[in-house]
């Protein structure tokens, strides 16, 4: 039994079958990649997992509990964090404040009215945010305006913010899309480090095969809304069906 169990999930948009009978099991503390050509339904699947879309059929269980019908913030509080294709951070806030917000969310839940205390008096939060920034090698940027950072730094901050919530499952949506090679390699190293140092399950949607094969322990290939194969990276590389459906086109 994996930490995330997707059973027979289907989703239609008008005449388009975006997902049909998707079955997927992500084992705890592994890195699971979901790949597939454009329009294979990767983003739809991801949006179902985080509660942005409600599927027409099927079930999604996270750690034994159904996520369907819950709002994104509730699903997040269950322990699923998401990294976006374009970094979603609080660009008008400082880097430290960006990091403090998930710490508050972890400690206080989805809402708490603490309107009189000074936020810098919350020592445990500040300390946690600062140590998280150190882990991300961003301690020197703590007072910086988050919006003025480079894209690579924004990505790094976003991943850090997700980790600060101590999620059980981290979802990454093409985390290296549009990045220069050097930034991509930095991100790979960061993710490897996270995988080694933390008890965390990572599900990653990715286009870049270099990223996928350097990280993933299992790979699911999605095509036209259904999983084609699921296997280890070594087997996927040689799989004729995959080469035909996906690698053959892009290679």
């Amino acid at each position, binding site marked *: 039994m994996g930490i995330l169990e997707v059973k027979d999930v289907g989703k239609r948009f008008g005449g388009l079958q975006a997902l049909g009978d998707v079955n997927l099991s992500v084992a705890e503390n592994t890195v699971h990649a979901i790949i597939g050509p454009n329009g294979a339904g990767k983003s739809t699947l991801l949006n179902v997992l*985080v509660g942005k879309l409600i599927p027409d059929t099927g079930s999604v269980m996270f750690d034994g509990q159904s996520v369907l019908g819950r*709002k*994104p*913030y*509730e699903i*997040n*509080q269950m322990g699923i*964090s*998401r990294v*976006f294709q374009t970094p*979603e*951070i*609080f*660009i*008008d*806030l400082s880097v430290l*404040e960006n990091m*403090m*917000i*998930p710490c*508050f*969310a*972890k400690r206080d*839940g*989805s*809402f*708490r*009215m*603490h*309107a*009189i*205390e*000074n*936020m*810098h*008096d*919350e020592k445990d*939060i500040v300390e946690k945010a600062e140590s998280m920034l150190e882990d991300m090698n961003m301690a020197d940027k703590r007072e910086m305006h988050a919006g*003025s950072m480079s894209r690579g730094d924004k990505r790094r901050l976003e991943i850090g*913010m997700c980790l600060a*919530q101590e999620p059980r499952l981290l979802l990454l949506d093409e985390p290296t899309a549009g990045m220069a090679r050097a930034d991509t390699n930095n991100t790979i190293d960061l993710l490897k480090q996270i995988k080694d140092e933390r008890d965390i399950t990572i599900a990653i949607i990715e286009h870049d095969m270099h990223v996928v094969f350097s990280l993933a322990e299992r790979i699911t290939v999605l095509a036209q809304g259904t999983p084609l194969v699921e296997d280890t990276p070594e087997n996927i590389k040689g799989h004729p069906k995959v080469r035909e459906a996906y690698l053959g086109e892009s290679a």
Partner: protein
Amino acid sequence: MLGLNKKDMTLLIVVTILTLSAPFILNPFPTDSAMAQFNAGYPDLMQRFAIFGIFAIGFNLLFGLTGYLSFGHAAFLGVGSYSVVWMYKLLDYNVIWGLPLAIVTSGIFALLIGFVSMRRSGIYFSILTLAFAQMSFNLAYSVLTPITNGETGLQVYNNDPQVLMGANEASSPHLFGLVMNSSAKVGVGAWEFTFNNGYYFCGVIAILVFYLSIRIFRSPFGMMLRAIKSNQTRMAYTGLNPRPYTLAAFVISGMYAGLAGGLLASMDPLAGAERMQWTASGEVVLMTILGGAGTLMGPVLGAGFIKYFENIFSKINDTVLHNWFAFLPDGLEDFVVFLIHPFIGKGWHLTLGILFMLVVTFLPGGLVEGGQRIAAMIKRTKEDEDTPAKTEPAE
């Protein structure tokens, strides 16, 4: 000190000193001089500075922090005024009964309106609040006449119960006998300064709620509100539910408005429906933006600026202009007066509208941003003089 860092404490102390010494500062010109018309140190105007300052500080807690643009805040102002006048009618003229009630009723109103309006965001939110305010205004004018006294406006009549009214009690608003509209006048040389009870009452409350707003700005709650303005998506995917945060901000800011409305009725025991009209909501939007939304001082500056110039501009007339430009040749003098004429006196709103458009277009941060830009410019010139060879590294 007081839970504030050094910078905020300095700001609070400066604001406190300015507020308490306003009767001096706003009266810089001797009473008999030609410039005396620019004095603003008389009770009525100073009270409005403080009251609209409170209104704008509250509006800024919503708009400045969360970015939700409410066009219906005047409704709460009206609710506050009605509450206070009702307490005059039922109990007595002591404002101590009415003001807490004003805060509570406007808070409840804000909770109801906010609960519905906050279900949508952006332009829809603005239109919903506008619709609610306009609805309250229409109701106050028509069916609710038993409560609001319709077009006449609510006021105290001789046959009102006033159950707590003592035999020697003042027959105008007071705080435990401290009568709001009484003033002490002090003449110093050519100057005359007016110290008005009502102004100091409003001023002290304004300082308190300004302090409260600093605390809210610096609190985790305030940070959450800024985060909502910055990125609602990340907010939701960080496990935070934006709605209770924005609703709380809406209610707090509605209570500020109710307090301001209550103070208006504490200075002058009247409440009319026109106080709830959406043009009044527009005014607080203007004050906040003009001063600088999202900054601590902005709304206070904006409120003071608008109320001061409203007052001054409406006093300037053609005769005054002719006096000013008397040094010009006759034809030119008439021409200059003719050019300026539409913008003064009753034309104040025209000036305000143009000013507002200019600020939104070129200076979205308002007067505060303007001040910062000028300060930066001066600093740069200075630095250039000090170290002419050094250049700023590009970001």
